[in-house]
């Protein structure tokens, strides 16, 4: 394997030319996005440098408490990010279900991945635990966000259809079945589509990173396949838990639909 090229500061700095090019384009076109572009570039740089140092510390001092704390912080950030992203007003019950589904789906998948698939010892080895947790949580967050949006929109848009089914004696589960199935389908579809294009249309970030840092492409691909399947499992588990519990928050104990007009 060739020696890995360590990027010098000036080389890193050269990459910011792309930001400058974008700034020139938006200014020329009169698109008012300069401050967001600058802010996001600066934030990305500071966040990644900070994370780099944190990871160096964690890797040098492996400790189960640190790994679990980082996991809890990522999980919390992801859950609040989902709440923030939603345009619709979420009920307290629905927020609880989102948090529970995220926690359950990603934790089960992570433990399976760490203990069975990669068989890491010790299980909390931050070199594996943290990046894998990050990928599972990040993708599950995107999936569940879509699921929440589709379920909420579906229940509001199809209110008369759901109520029409209730009037005939349907259980809430049957009345909401189509909406629940559609929400699950939309949430899982991007992950399935990304698997279709993988390796041909694009090389995934994790694999590219590993290859650039000197790992053999075959090892990188082994990991990538495993992680993609892990992501699929985590997204599916998170979203199915969410939709199966989430639709219930739109009904009360008398099986009445509780959506305000």
């Amino acid at each position, binding site marked *: 394997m060739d020696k890995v090229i360590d990027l010098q500061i000036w080389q890193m700095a050269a990459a910011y030319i792309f930001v400058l090019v974008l700034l020139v384009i938006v200014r020329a076109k009169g698109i008012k996005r300069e401050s967001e572009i600058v802010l996001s570039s600066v934030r990305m740089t500071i966040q990644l440098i900070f994370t780099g140092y944190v990871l160096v510390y964690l890797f040098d001092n492996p400790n189960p408490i640190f790994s679990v704390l980082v996991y809890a912080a990522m999980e919390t950030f992801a859950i609040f990010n989902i709440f923030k992203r939603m345009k619709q007003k979420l009920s307290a019950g629905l927020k609880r279900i989102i948090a529970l589904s995220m926690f359950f789906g990603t934790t089960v998948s992570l433990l399976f991945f760490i203990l069975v698939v990669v068989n890491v010892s010790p299980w909390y080895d931050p070199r594996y635990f943290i990046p894998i947790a990050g990928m599972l949580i990040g993708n599950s967050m995107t999936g569940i966000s879509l699921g929440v949006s589709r379920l909420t929109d579906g229940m509001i848009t199809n209110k008369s259809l759901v109520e029409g089914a209730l009037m005939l*004696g349907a*259980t809430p589960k049957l009345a909401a079945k189509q909406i629940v199935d559609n929400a699950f389908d939309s949430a899982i579809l991007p992950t399935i589509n990304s698997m279709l294009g993988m390796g041909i249309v694009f090389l995934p970030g994790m694999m590219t990173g590993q290859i650039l840092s000197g790992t053999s492409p075959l090892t990188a691909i082994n990991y990538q396949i495993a992680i993609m399947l892990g992501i699929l499992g985590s997204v599916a588990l998170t979203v199915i838990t969410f939709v199966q519990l989430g639709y219930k928050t739109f009904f009360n104990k*008398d099986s*009445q639909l509780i959506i305000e007009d």
Partner: protein
Amino acid sequence: MFQIIDLKYKNILDIKELEIPGQRITCIVGQSGSGKTTLLRMLNKLISPDSGKILYNDENLKEIDSIGLRRKVVMLPQTPVIFNGTIRDNLQIGLKLAEKPEAADSELLEILEKVHLKKGLDENADKLSGGEKQRLALGRVMLLKPEVLLLDEPSSALDEETEQLIIESVVEFSKRNNRTLIMVTHSKKVADTFADNIIEIKEGKVVEA
């Protein structure tokens, strides 16, 4: 059958006392916005009163399982709900949602005849006109043969002649099967012709019972 005592719901309904007899045809009349549909929705337990009580066969609606009740007391909304698929799918879905066995095609055709819908079972339900959709939805609830049929303006999208035919058919169906029919209607003529019992609601209060 239904007894309503001291019922209050938001500022929409305020009924001191009302009795709706079983195995009879009851028409609820009144101006739009008077609370007729709200009353019907309450009998179907889609909503619950803020105070007071509704008894169904002497049992408080509050204590009755909502799904079990709605399978006996079925409601047809004014705007018919049409599901994706054929006319057959739209008739069968009522049975499916109420977890009852599917009906044979012969029974479906018989129902279509009763609601005067001259269409094939394989036709796309979405292509039907407003009045035809209303008749299809009526056929769907008749197929369920519930103890009580709650109909909200079942003929609002029909011309006078079809209205007469459809109401006649549903009234005949209820009488022959000893069912209770409670119908909200804007038509004084329908109420006068078919009702055994007329309830007039004005600004949420019962005027005449």
